[in-house]
């Protein structure tokens, strides 16, 4: 039995330890906000937080997660109460197809937790592992800046 938490909830599973976290999230826990895009750490669609750090869940074997805290896009907020990064994404209407955006938002949230007011270069560094085939990059940059503002407002 492997035990870890996802969005604060305890998960116990007897799946093979080499099972990628991505597929446990999607197929077992039905947390489908996290997406499959490449399976080889090249696209970032599967980005989640592991103990607060942005990680590619397609590369994380659950056998290595004993006791870990995993957070997914679903922990960032809901349609009724979106979190600050999500609000910035809504305000700037970033998404086209939207398929990459869970991963983009998770990468942005991890960056903002560490660097509250990132410049463009820091944003580029943190999010360049996240492909967007639709080409929403200009809006992503703007939305990260806006999210930084919203987070400051929220804490004031």
């Amino acid at each position, binding site marked *: 039995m492997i035990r870890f938490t996802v969005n604060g909830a305890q998960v116990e599973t007897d799946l093979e330890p080499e099972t990628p976290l991505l597929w446990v999230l999607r197929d077992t826990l039905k947390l489908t906000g996290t*997406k499959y895009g490449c399976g080889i750490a090249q696209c970032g669609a599967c980005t989640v937080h592991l103990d607060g750090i942005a990680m590619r869940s397609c590369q994380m074997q659950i056998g290595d997660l004993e006791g870990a805290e995993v957070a997914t896009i679903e922990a960032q907020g809901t349609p009724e109460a979106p979190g600050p990064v999500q609000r910035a994404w809504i305000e700037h*209407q970033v998404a086209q*197809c939207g398929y990459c955006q869970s991963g983009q938002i998770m990468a942005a949230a991890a960056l903002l937790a560490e660097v509250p007011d990132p410049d463009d270069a820091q944003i580029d560094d943190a999010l360049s592992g996240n492909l967007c085939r639709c080409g929403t990059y200009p809006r992503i940059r703007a939305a990260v800046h806006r999210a930084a503002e919203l987070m400051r407002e929220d804490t004031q």
Partner: protein
Amino acid sequence: MSRAGKIARRTFLFGTVAIAGGVALGYYVVQHPHDNPLKPGLDPGEAALNPYVLIDADGVTIITPRTDMGQGAHSVLAAMVAEELDLAWSDIRVWDGPPGAAYYNAKVAAEALPFSATDDGFVARNARAFGGRVAKVLGLQITGGSTTVPDGFDRMRMAGAAARQMLIGAAEAETGISQADLTTRDGHVVTPDGEAIAYADLAVQAAKIAPPDEVALKSPDDWRYLGQPMERLDIVAKSTGTQGYGIDIDLPDMLYATVRTNPRRGGVVRGYDASKAEGMPGVQRVVPVTGGAGVIADSTWRAMRAAQEISFDWGEAPYPADTAQMWAQLEASFTEALQDSRFRDDGDVDAALEQAGGEVLEAQYRVPHLAHAPLEPMNATAQLKDGRLDIWASTQIPMYVVATATRLTGLKAEDIHLHNQYAGGSFGRRLEDDFIAEAIELAMVAEGRPIKMTWTREEDMSHDFPRPMAVSRARGAVADGKVAAFDLSLATPSVAQSQGGRLNQPMPGPDVAIVAGAWDQPFAIPDYRVTGYRAQPMVPVSSWRSVGASGNGFLHDCFLDELIHAAGADPLQERLRLCDDPLSRGVLEAVGEMSGWSGPDMGDGRARGVAFTLSFGVPAAEVVEVSQTNAGLRIDKVFVAVEVGRVLDPVNFDNQVKGGVIWGLGHAMNCELTYKDGMTEQRNFDSYQGMRLYQAPSIEVRALENGETIRGIGEPAVPPAAPALANAIFAATGQRIRELPLNRHVSFA
């Protein structure tokens, strides 16, 4: 309580009972135009007969029968109806609707005709009208060709206006108040004394009223949604991870699957050994599918892992086995026998070039095969139970999917239920239904259980129907500092022929896509000729964002740039001088102004290039600025101007144009599909990257709205991006790169 108030209550009760399944205004005549496709006098009343407005007790649902692949089709189509029907934005609900011939796309076939968008002559106009009629006959419910907005613009607004009139008529019947005294507001009919009757309460009565023959549309001055920034209907879902895509479908009792077929497209499978895969955890069975085998398991990952353990004996590729042979085949295609079209032949090119003698410029260019690779890999879910087939998948061709399903299952069309899904991108990939057919094949052996079939990225990239490679041979001459002669020959396999073969539809006549974005450019070069050559089919190919123009923009504009350079003229000024279409001149002037154009050289290792392509009726000009850095070449800035007649959805418009530029630049920088032993050498995003965030330039977009025809913008920003970048690289480095991707010759920061 006022009379209207009482009646509203009474009819509500009546309504809820009667509306259980929903009442579609005009629904009963849906099939009408298709029983009598050429019935005279059909067109004027058409909108009133189209089933776009569904009202039930919960309110209004707008049917948006074009697939939303990220281009915002649902939002903009809904806005057209809502504008006329008078709905509150927050109340709008949309549904793809069932596949239906009534949802034909009149613009797709029109685009396939050999008349340039700037040609408004009698023959061109009639041919376009005939094209729409053909689409109607064929029931082409297609999403593509940047046609959603132009095709929907009148139809959807008229559908909204017709429904509104019927609802007002219903209110008159219920209240006795004359229609002239009734107005509408936010989903209600409003009486003179301010009583508001919800549309839902009037729906049943309204459905009994004959659709009006004529409707008056609002003046654009009175629009409250169209032309204004709107919040996309899907934006909250897509920002919170709650937007459902095909890949997210979850059904009771569902099994998961993946498929592997011969990576030599169209090759057979001679046999396979699945004994290892069959014994792996979670695997239920391994079954043959056309061209390969599918693994059905209790999770996607277990299916994918097991599929890797099947050893296949693949047959040979029915096309040249490697890229070098393919180039050779293309280069051998410039023959009289393979000549497909010569839509442009101005002046006397042969004489002009002969006269120029030794001064003739000649160059060969080429563009590679390219994958669509939307970020959501191809997937489909299917369930065959009790003589009924349900399909959950995202497709741009719902009618063809139903036809495929009838062919595979032997069921009647009415027993096939396609639930079209939001797509995680497409770029033309979902104009093919191969992956859906595989899911159906699996469902046919799954004893009633739903099967969700998901491709690995590797299967997706190696089983695409790519944008075909193309070769151009260009010759030209300059005189007195001007471009004087331009002779362009283009050779590529025909996309229409490849698609037509799969759809069992002959594609007679020349394939316009072979020369699109080249033959139809608005330049008055005295001696000017464009010839298309239809190369023998190689790998199966399909439409890729901006189709023929995607490569021809580069092949045409870069050689024009060479000629302008040889003439010693300014790249922007000479294009302007040559351009004989006022709308096209407008976009060239606009990018000149936006970029502060003062010539290609900007000093300090910085330079800029300009390019122009007219495609899908949209003139698009782009200026790309680059700089040389220690890490390599950087794209700093892009200026884009496009002429679309009218912008209906400004935010989405901006997003589409920027996305198109990034798509064009990213693929030009570093993408190609190459073949070895009949298979693609690129299998995933490690070797097929496109643009990443750190490479994304700042992009300034300007929409011009001078044209009389409204145009779609999903594609036209793509074709000029690659040549503008290549021309900028020439300006910066003196290096004229005549093939894509550019990183074969320069490195990018």
